């Protein structure tokens, strides 16, 4: 690309940046995902509240984000929350970075990593919810008294894994 500077955001990206949707923390979230690092300049945190749709499938009832970052980071976060809201956890886990970029009408090449981060933050929030809630490891898991106790037995192990994973980002 001949022009390597950043003054070529799409209108959609700028609109998402100027009027971000689902901005801010949500109270008592069921899952939280934080990604990025201050060295590269982008930090994102996604909060989800899980509910059930009419079919009884678990879905993202509410979602919020906090982002310290550039125009593309804020816009990617905002559009990701819009894409995920009211989707089932299954559907939301399948959102790709390309979908995010497309929804913004494209991103400068150097900024594509922002869409990756937003996607990762969402996935982490869903993972976080799943790791905390006993019966939700998979959609087919039917919670019985037995499996619930098995879940709680392994919960500490999972917690430790999560804190290790936290250190890696």
């Amino acid at each position, binding site marked *: 690309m001949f022009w390597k500077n950043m003054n070529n955001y799409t209108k959609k990206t700028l609109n998402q940046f100027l009027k971000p949707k689902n901005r801010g923390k949500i109270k008592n979230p069921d899952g939280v995902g934080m990604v990025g690092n*201050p060295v590269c300049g982008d930090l994102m945190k996604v909060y989800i509240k899980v509910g059930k749709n009419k079919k009884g499938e678990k879905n993202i009832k509410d979602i919020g984000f906090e982002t*310290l970052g550039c125009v*593309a980071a804020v816009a990617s976060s905002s559009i990701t929350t819009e894409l995920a809201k009211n989707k089932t956890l299954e559907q939301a886990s399948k959102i790709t970075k390309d979908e995010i970029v497309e929804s913004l009408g494209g991103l400068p090449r*150097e900024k594509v990593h922002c869409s990756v981060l937003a996607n990762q933050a969402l996935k982490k929030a869903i993972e976080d919810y799943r790791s905390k809630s006993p019966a939700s490891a998979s959609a087919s898991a039917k919670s019985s008294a037995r499996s619930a106790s098995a879940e709680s037995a392994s919960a500490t192990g999972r917690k430790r894994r999560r804190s290790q994973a936290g250190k890696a980002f």
Partner: protein
Amino acid sequence: MKRMYLDHAATTPVDKRVLRAMLPYFTNKYGNPMSLHSFGREARKAVEEARSKAAGFFNCSVEEIFFTSGATESNNWVIKGVVKASQSRKPHIVTSAIEHHCVLEACQGIEKDGLAEVTYLKPDSRGIISVESVKKAIRKNTILVSIMYVNNEIGTLEPIEEIGKLLEEKILFHTDATQAVNYFNCDVKKLGVDFLSMSGHKIYGPKGIGLLYIKKGSLISRVQEGGSQEGEMRAGTHNVPGIVGLAKALDLVKKDKNILQLRNHLISRVLKEVPLSRLNGSLDKRSPNNANFTFNNIEGESLVMLLDKEGIASSTGSACSSRSLEPSHVLSAIGLKPEEAHGSLRLTLGKDTTKKDIDFIVEKIKKAVAKLREISGNVLEEYEQLH
């Protein structure tokens, strides 16, 4: 919407008087100064008059002024041309870590090619290169010291005259005066420099024109071949309108006390009224048109874009605004953490900036910073607690 331009360190508008001086050289007096005929002669006369004006401005002789396409070319020429002309097997160059990329990348290039060794001096936390550090860095094989006069990002004023005295006549001394010409004395004899670079478009002149002062007798080779222009030192057809415009712009440079007051008003209001803000670089040793702030918990590109929405043109040292995705090398060199460099905002005033503009801008900065902090919440603090 009224637009306000606070990015004069990036470029300036062409002064109408400069434009007027240039215009005849596009369509009427369009000759090539190297031609023998009358068209050539009138163009040549314009170039030599411009050279004479430039020599007056820098207090040197006309044979010491070489027109180039701008400071980037001038700086490249000095670094590469001095190394090329050097007799030493492996010469050594001293420069600073806060130079413009054109100096740094030219130095890194010759280092990579094994043509010279380079020392990059660190500034102190105020952004000043000490004379002492230059003295310490000098080696037996040092052939060139290149230190900028005024830094383009944080506006800090470097002790050029003192370094000139230290080096005397023994080692070639270059200064990139691009950001200094408008506001500081550029008498090359007073400064004690052998080379001085500058650009037209930073002083209300046109883009694509600049010059290099080369003190008579300095050992430097040409780096651009292909013609006998500029005493066979810089090939390429003269940019006649540009050269005329550059000379006119130099003519119009004058002391402006007002700009310092306005800049100080801007700094004091921002530091007082925007929470968690600070000034980057020394306040005293600083170009009168430069303010560079860091605001915690915000990212600079986002701030620039929010201000742009309000018609305010500014700039940032944030990684996100550059293709490298690395924060400003200048802000890093004065000790800012990456997240602090990311949250930087540079405002550079010009001769048309008013107090009313500044007051408007401060209000908009306050709003924009508050908005971005709402979006970012406490993520940085939470991240730091985790790590």
